[in-house]
């Protein structure tokens, strides 16, 4: 994530408790580290047309407990490789939340209940604000702990550690 960057795109809305098996099925993830290949199967079991509808920069918008289930880091990676620029959810499962930040995928915890599929959104993570351009509404984002914001700004944990050599709280 570049500093001061505002993300723009349209919403793809999902429900509560979207688990990592739905994001990328176990039957694919053990086969390869090629995330572009795996990304073709993102959300396949619950929304087979999902990847064909996504325009680069779009958002996944979900209810509570997004990313529950396994620790597979392939989950945030395939979302990123599918062209999604950020995930907005009412709440996140903790391992997914951490994995997303560690891989430079912005995640925003906010009240997503009013967002409709197709709404045009503008997400400013540093300001902690989501603007729903279609509905003319604004949503506040729960702020990230500074260490997570720093990791996200570096584009992920690998780049962060390369720069800092360790964790700075």
């Amino acid at each position, binding site marked *: 994530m570049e500093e001061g960057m505002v993300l723009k795109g349209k919403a793809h809305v999902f429900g509560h408790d979207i688990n990592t098996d739905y994001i990328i099925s*176990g039957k694919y993830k*053990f086969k390869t580290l090629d995330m572009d290949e795996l990304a073709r199967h993102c959300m396949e079991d619950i929304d087979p047309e999902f990847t064909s509808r996504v325009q680069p920069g779009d958002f996944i918008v979900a209810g509570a407990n997004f990313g529950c289930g396994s620790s597979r880091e*392939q989950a945030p990676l395939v979302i990123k490789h599918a062209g999604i620029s950020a995930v907005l959810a009412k*709440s996140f499962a903790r391992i997914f939340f*951490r994995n997303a930040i560690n891989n430079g995928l912005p995640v925003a915890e906010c009240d997503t209940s009013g967002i409709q599929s197709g709404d045009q959104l503008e997400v400013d993570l540093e300001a902690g604000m989501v603007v729903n351009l279609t509905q003319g509404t604004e949503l506040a984002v729960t702020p990230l702990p500074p260490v997570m914001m720093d990791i996200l700004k570096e584009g992920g*944990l690998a780049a962060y550690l390369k720069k800092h050599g*360790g964790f700075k709280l």
Partner: protein
Amino acid sequence: MGGTISEKIFSNHAGREVRAGELVVVEVDFMMGQDGTSPLAIKAFREIGGEKVLDPSRVAMVIDHSAPSPLEGVSNLHAMMRSFAAEQGIGLYDVGWGVCHCLLPEQGHVAPGDIVIGADSHTTTYGAINAFSTGVGSTDLAAAMLTGKLWFKVPSTLRLELRGKLATGVYSKDVALFLAGRLTADGATYLAVEYGGEVIESLSVEARFTISNLAVEMGAKAGLMEADSKTLRWLEGRLSRPFEPVSPDPDAVYQEVREFDLSDLTPQVAEPHRVDQVKPVEELEGTPIQQAVIGTCTNGRLEDLEVAARILAGRRVSPEVRLIVAPASRQVLMEAMAKGVAQRLIEAGAAFVTPGCGPCVGTHNGVPADGERVISTANRNFKGRMGNANAFIYLASPATVAASAVAGKITDPRRML
């Protein structure tokens, strides 16, 4: 102000008193990756610029999820793990050793009071022996392999007091499913769960692992129990290093304390496609099944196979059902052979597969057909979990699975005991 188990373990590691909500960077006592997560961890380790793993004696890699390999892509990732482990001097548990969460405590890698991370969500399992153990992703594992440390937010704790005495035919899996049903899939998100009460005290250590294993199905970061005399006896001969069990202070501050009296609990079943969609077995009896699975990190231990063997002794698996048994480790399999347990299961018609995750993750060992119903002792029944999005998975105890395999339909095991 007193501390919870979680706060006290973090305080011991941080070298100062810490409480829920604080961020800490602490030494990780042991760390683990499996074959679905280690290859990405190795890749991340290289990306960070890592050359040497700080302390290979604190790392294990386990090939369990897709073992032996069913596909060339998987084989190549396994080869990558073998070569990294050899280069770094890391202990590798290769094909046939068993499931990571059975192996780590069994092989003496986990001690009470430890902080353990695993690149697998069911790492919460070792909370049953008083370790703060939690699932992380591959990059966090890479960071810990390189630096020996990781950052954590000390979680608040939800204390669950489990009162009463479990009835015959009701097991720790029924308790774990009942709690998932009551607390729901995000009822403990970001929290450490602390389990206590007579029910926990009455259970064997093996049975306790099942409860901590399912803590993550409520979103928990850890599923902690105190170490008692049973824990210490269980660790004898397994663990060689010194350790310090951690108990909560009497004035510990909990986010919430909930009490459940489980004396009237009956066998529980989670319906497709949610772990928290739980019903008493009575309400689902008669649902036809085509496959039954006994095994996994939840219920693949010796006691689990013994319970199943008791039900299957002198009975036959229904001709309409495939019963697949995946012992959780080689040691479990050998003990099951020595005790005649494996023999009884096989005589009844069970098909044994390699110790490991078995068909749980949908990569091999029994992918169900379209429209089929599977009853399994595993921990997840999400749509597509076992490799076919058109199949339906029910979760239950080894007793309920064994009884259902005999009857060809979901069956209350209490009638077959």
